[in-house]
Structures are given as C-alpha cells and as structure tokens.
C-alpha cells in the first residue's frame, strides 16, 4: 500500500475500482473489477481465435479467413488449441461469475421468447433487475454449456480416427449446431453490449458505469450499491 499512498488522489479511486466491484466512485459505479474484465476478454480472445480459424474449415464462404493465420493448414493446427484455451478460460469465467449468476425466480421468465422480444422492444421493465438480468444469466449458462459441447465434440473431430464412425458423424453435427447457435448468440451479445446499450461496452473496458445507466438497466443493483450494500454473495 505504500506504493499507492504516494500517488495523486485521483488515481486512488481507479485503483480501488480495480480491486472491488459494486462501489461508487464519484459519478460512476464500479461494475467489473480488473480481474473480471481480464477474464472476460481472455475468453473473448480465444473465442475469436477459435472462431476465425474454424470458419474457413467449416465453409469456403469464409475461406479468406484462413489467410489471417497463414493458410488452412495453420488453421487446422491452431483451431483445436484455441478451442481448448477457450474452454479453459470459459471454465475460469464460469467459476468466477457463478456466484453472481444464480438464477432468481423472476429470471425464469426469460426462458419464454415473449420476454426476450419485450426486452428488445424496451418494454416491460422490471424494477427488480439486479446486477445481471435473466437474459444475461441465461447467456452465461448457455455459453458454458455450449463450451462444454464444443469441447466434447471437438475432441472427437480433433482425433477422428480414434473414434467409431457414428460417434464421428454425431460429433461433427453437434459441433456445427452448437457453434452456429453460439455465434448467433454472440452477435446479439456484442450488439447489446455496444450499439444497443451505450455505456455497457465501457463497463467491460474501464470497469465503471454511470449512475443513470445503472438505474435504467439494473435498478435493484443500483439501489443496493447506493444503499451502501457493497457486495452481494
């Protein structure tokens, strides 16, 4: 702490922001501390590495992506390792976020498509939305499950000659269906996290959100943080 004591006061807030979540710093609230952000972007890095090296193997429509890595042979080597790294980082993220992603009774509504449509129309706002809404929690669990499906089927596709034919065929189909659903979900994840909801991307970059953002998107979390309750289990 002696190192931080000599810094200008402005920095102390940032340093604090990097260590703890759900605290008020000036006009902003710390939503994601540095560890959370680092884990999230590590998962994203390996996801895109695996995606861009896998797409050219999937279809010649994305064949040009192979040139990003130096050809299809490189992709064939890189893809499984990137996928493995993706799974491992996803596992770390799963453990890291599990406590905050516990499903509450209200979150079950998100299983109905009507709720998702309502959300996309900015309707039916729920004042009881905590730090993560039901959609985010569902995406979290779906992504973890998807990563597991991709790993298990991916191992078979990686070493096809070690498995019986029927297993190989099934693995290819599971790998395909899972990754297609995953990519569609990630497209919306990125859209909601950037253009659709301004301020969200900043929270994953610098860690903080502005108070109006918190009050709009996560009202209960906003009340809890400003009410002095800094950490939830």
């Amino acid at each position, binding site marked *: 702490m002696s190192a931080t004591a000599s810094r200008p006061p402005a920095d102390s807030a940032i340093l604090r922001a990097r260590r703890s979540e759900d605290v008020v710093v000036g006009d902003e609230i710390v939503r994601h501390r540095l560890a959370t952000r680092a884990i999230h972007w590590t998962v994203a890095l390996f996801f895109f590495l695996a995606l861009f090296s896998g797409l050219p*193997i*999937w279809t010649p429509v994305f064949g040009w992506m192979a040139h990003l890595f130096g050809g299809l042979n490189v992709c064939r080597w890189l893809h499984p390792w990137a996928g493995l790294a993706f799974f491992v980082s996803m596992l770390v993220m799963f453990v890291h976020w599990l406590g905050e992603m516990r499903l509450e009774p209200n979150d079950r509504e998100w299983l109905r498509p009507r709720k998702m449509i309502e959300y996309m129309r900015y309707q039916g706002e729920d004042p009881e939305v905590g730090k993560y809404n039901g959609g985010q929690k569902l995406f979290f669990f779906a992504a973890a499950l998807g990563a597991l499906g991709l790993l298990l089927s991916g191992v078979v596709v990686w070493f096809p000659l070690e498995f019986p034919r029927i297993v190989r065929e099934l693995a290819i189909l599971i790998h395909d269906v899972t990754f297609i659903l995953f990519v569609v979900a990630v497209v919306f994840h990125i859209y909601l996290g950037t253009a659709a909801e301004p301020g969200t991307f900043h929270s994953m970059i610098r860690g903080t959100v502005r108070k109006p953002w918190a009050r709009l998107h996560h009202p209960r979390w906003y009340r809890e943080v*400003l009410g002095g309750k800094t950490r939830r289990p």
Partner: protein
Amino acid sequence: MAAHNLEIRRSSASLWGGATGMRQLPVVSKFIDTTTCIGCKACEVACQEWNDLGPVSTRQTGTYQTMPELDPEFWNLIRFNEQEFDGGVVWLMRKDQCMHCEDPGCLAACPAPGAIVQYENGIVDVNPEACIGCGFCATGCPFDVPKFHAKTGKMAKCTLCVDRVESGLEPACIKACPTGCLQFGTKDDMVAMGHARVEQLKANGFANAVLYDPPGVGGTGVVTVLGHGDHLEWYGLPRDPRVPLGVRFWKSVLRPLGVVAIFGAVVGAIGHFMYQGPKEPPQTGGEPTGGEPPRTPRP
C-alpha cells in the same frame, strides 16, 4: 498426385465448379474378377513400386493376407477369406482399394479446397499440397479407404495411377496381374465384361454371382465380379454403401442454414438498431449527483 492433363470435374470445398466440359473423356474403371484371382500379390508389389511406397512391415494374421488393413503406404490389399460352402471350403480373394465412387463421400466431407478432386475421367484423387490432414474424408468414405499418414500429416489412398492413366497407360496393378483377373478400360466396357463374366459364372454353378457396382454412391470406378454375391460380408463389402447421412446433412442442410443464421443475426442486429435505436437513460433533468438514490422504482 496431381494430374495436369486432366480437367477437374469436381473439387472438395468448392462452391462453384471449375469444369468446362470442353474435353469429354470416357469414365475409366478397373475390372476385378475375384473368381480368377490366385492371390499372388503381384498387384500389391506393383502398386508399392510405381507409387514409391513403403516398404511397409507386413503383419501375419494367420491367413494369406499381407496385413489386416489398408495403410497410408499400402493402397492395394488383397483381402483373404476362407468360407465353408457347399460341403467344402472356398478361398475368397478381394482386391481392396479406393473404389473411385461416382459420388465420392470423401470429397463431400473434405473441408480443404482442392484437396480431393474428381477428374473428368472419374478418378478420385488426393492432392497432398491442399490436404490439411483432418481426416474428415475417412468419415465420409463408406469403404473406410483413406488413411492418415503420420509422417506427412496428409491422407493417402489409391490414385488409380492417375499419372499413368493420363499418359495412356494402365494402372500398375493391372499391368502386373498374371491371370488377367484385373483389366482396365472405359467404365462401359468393364461393366459389359463384368456382366458377361457373371453370366458365365451363373452357367457354371455360381447361381449368386454378381457384378459389384453399388448404385448408392453412383457406381464405382472399380467393378468387382463376386462368385458369392449373396454373401457380400465374406468379401468385406458393404451391402448398400452411401455417403453417410450425417455428412450429407451437415454439408447440404446444416451448413447453408448456419451461414444464413449467422448473416441473419448480423442483419437482424443492424435492423433492430435502425428501427429501435439504442436504449439510453432519459436525458432530461441531468444526471443524478450521487447523494440521493431514488428509492422508488421507475415506472
């Protein structure tokens, strides 16, 4: 093996064919008569020599078969089987190799552009420079022919001696056969020869003789006369080989749907943004200063 004088009719992982069809070549085929094969293995040796393969250690399995399976350095294997038949025993020799299907499952499954090609004359070939060694072709092949070569990291199989055929020569195995049970020519001629031989066999006590040219894969570039067509399993041949349903579904249904879904998601997100716009906190009244958290939920 790349044949430079032959036009490519079909190529793996290619959405748009490059064939012009300007030079119509007759489809070629091998003819194999299992009933006159004496199991001398001259074709195996000729294959090894011409293709610069091996030497591969043979593996004794207690029969007159050189090794249990095809190998990345052994593309032509005379399978041996002994069966009880009609109060006695019969020795069955069947030449196992790439069947050069008209509708090749390996080519359908292959993800590397140009790694598996089908030439105008029907020969199915692997191009090592394009092959990425993923092994999908082995999943696509109903005959379990392509083998992974650990040393080269590529798949390997019989090329039907395309380098000889494009120069007007017959494949090495055909050249070496001492009994004439192996023949080479146009598919039409070989099928005609096969049917004639089958009739001859039927007239000589082989009531179930057949010409194996399975229609499920569009016919093969290797037609085989079998004395006991009612027992394909004796020869290790599948009854109705087809490109596996999973591979077909994957390439023909799932993949196009997936491409549409991915682009659709992007278009959907853009469309949503144009129609609905961003979800932002109300700008009126300025930002809260931080001291007074609103205790009542917003409507």
